[in-house]
């Protein structure tokens, strides 16, 4: 899918930097405080009705990006446009109104529901905040209706979160996100905490709701199978940057960035065990406090050359809508062909 004139969400050069606190002594001495560039100059768009899958390992900045898009974490730089409107420039009041249209489902169904509120209060809150129901009875009725839709029922209205299983709690979280009839939902690892069979139920539910309500998702996950199954397009993140992005079939079937290739080869495949040649990625994600210079992946990349250590690669288009940031792109290499093991173990 290529960019249309009017995507629902358009993110331009978004960055989020967390500044460390600085002691008075250091400030007087002129020592720079530490800072973490969790999201670094990221641009992408999401079309109306589309699922954009955002994949990466822990610490790559994918959740921060999801929250910065909604201004749950204030972006440090860049612009987010939602349906043409600049979200980053909205006043607090206008932002609140905008949030009716942009919602989030969180990863941890245990931590994201207030243990002292009933389901009716938790799911009904958006109705009250946005003035979408006039009376208490109307709130309960609307909550009951959305509970039915996510596979719960009116009998659950006055129960507390601890009375539900993980899968049911995630359904409550989904009901809360949907009750204000939003257009766009950030799904932040919504199935990672669930058992396989429950995970499948929730994925199925999210896909059905998307079709019924005409939703658009930014779906964040570390699980390539989940992302591959439900995304139209995929963006792969590494240390705060998108290294590869494009239609799911292109990116996952013919990954071009050595990081995407390694990620794909690391996933155990139940259908064809041992089919993949393994690329053993050496080492671990470098500390975001002190990211490598140049291409951030060069410390673990089997294909790294000197240029990668000096200069950050620029994203290039390799096919319609498929872009990759890698210095060695033109050589059309893959980490499998080199047979090399990256770095030292």
């Amino acid at each position, binding site marked *: 899918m290529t960019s249309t004139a009017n995507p629902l969400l358009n993110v331009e050069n978004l960055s989020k930097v967390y500044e460390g606190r600085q002691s008075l002594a250091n400030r007087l001495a002129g020592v720079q405080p530490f800072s973490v560039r969790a999201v670094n100059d990221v641009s992408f768009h999401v079309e109306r009705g589309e699922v954009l899958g955002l994949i990466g*390992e822990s610490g790559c900045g994918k959740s921060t990006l999801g929250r910065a898009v909604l201004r749950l974490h204030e972006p440090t730089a860049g612009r987010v446009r939602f349906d043409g409107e600049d979200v980053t420039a909205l006043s607090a009041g206008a932002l609140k109104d905008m949030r009716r249209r942009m919602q989030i489902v969180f990863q941890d169904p245990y931590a994201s529901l207030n243990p002292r509120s009933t389901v009716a209060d938790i799911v009904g809150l958006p109705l009250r905040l946005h003035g979408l129901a006039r009376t208490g009875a109307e709130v309960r009725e609307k909550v009951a209706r959305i509970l039915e839709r996510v596979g719960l029922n009116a009998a659950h209205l006055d129960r507390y979160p601890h009375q539900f299983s993980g899968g049911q709690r995630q359904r409550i979280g989904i009901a809360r996100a949907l009750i204000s009839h939003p257009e766009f939902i950030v799904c932040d690892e919504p199935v990672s905490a669930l058992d*396989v*069979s429950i995970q499948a139920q929730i994925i199925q539910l999210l896909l059905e709701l998307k079709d019924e309500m005409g939703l658009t998702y930014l779906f964040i996950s570390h699980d390539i*199978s989940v992302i591959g199954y439900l995304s139209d397009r995929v963006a792969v993140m590494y240390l705060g940057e998108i290294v590869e992005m494009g239609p*799911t079939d292109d990116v996952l079937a013919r990954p071009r960035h050595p990081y995407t290739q390694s990620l794909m080869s*690391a996933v155990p495949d*139940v259908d064809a*065990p041992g089919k993949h040649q393994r690329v053993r990625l050496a080492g671990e994600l470098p500390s975001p406090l002190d990211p490598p210079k140049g291409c951030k992946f060069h410390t673990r990349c089997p294909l790294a050359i000197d240029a990668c250590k000096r200069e950050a690669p620029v994203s290039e288009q390799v096919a319609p809508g498929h872009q990759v940031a890698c210095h060695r792109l033109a050589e059309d290499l893959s980490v499998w062909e080199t047979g090399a093991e990256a770095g030292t*173990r």
Partner: protein
Amino acid sequence: MSHNENLLEVDGLRTVFDTSEGMVRAVDGVDVTVRRGECLGVVGESGSGKSVTFSSVMGLVRSPGRIESGSIRFEGRDLTRLSPREMRAIRGRDISMTMQDALTALNPALTVGEQLSEMLDAHDEDLPARGGARRRAIRDKSVEMLRLVGIPSPDSRLDQYPHEFSGGMRQRIMIAIALAPGPKLLIADEPTTALDVTIQAQVLELISEIRARLGMSVVLITHDLGVVAEHCDRVMVMYAGQVVEEGATVDVISNPQHPYTRGLLGSIPRLSLRGKPIRPIQGQVPNLVGLPPQCRFYSRCPDRTEACLQFVEMRNVGSDRRARCIALTQEEVA
């Protein structure tokens, strides 16, 4: 099958927990066989009893839990009849277990070296008897273990504390501690669940490599059928405290016999299934308190009939294949 070939034989194990709501039959009549040198995968969702089964093997079930009946034979000796002292000698030296969450399993107040030494000091019989020679030998062996599990500059890292390591490194340290006395059986409980996929691949390959090199047996407890497909010779699928299917990994995955195994395989999202509906198993795991003696998968099974409302035994469904489903007998009889 000769006893010699089987390292571990669990027979009719029942482990129960007494709770205020009633007795929970967490493990209800489980048989396990682990052969010498093999990797057995144990698959199941939360509450299937997979961890409790192997905590029972390790003698780690504590009140309000207890082993109600069954035998656990390791090299022919019944572990349930051993004194705590005899069990302590076996635990660690012959059978080791690594826990899912390395951060809580390691002692935060002791250095990695101290924790490794403790294990070696208790179980390694090849060490010099006492004094400086023993201490030096323990130190050398500890460094060697950290090197074996792929921790860079092991000599200096020995004196660091668990919090100074990343998640993947902590899991490696726990594996190093578990392997230090050279056990015959390693039980790895969800060793990679908390880890990123590239780190997961590293840790699993490490376990496979060491297994091949040391010729030990491995029990890999996981909820990920992909991990089983890549790393295990045989697999045992558990549901609500019982084994529902077991056999060679290839057979079970390519030709699942139990509806739960089929459901589990059908629940895995895949790139190749994009645009097609996945077939999740409906409903959720039953409450284990006061379960009637019927098929435990009854409430969620797409193929259930009235015949399922009785106790269902495991039955042989091929060479080295067993499954617990009433429909399978009917097929065999016909």
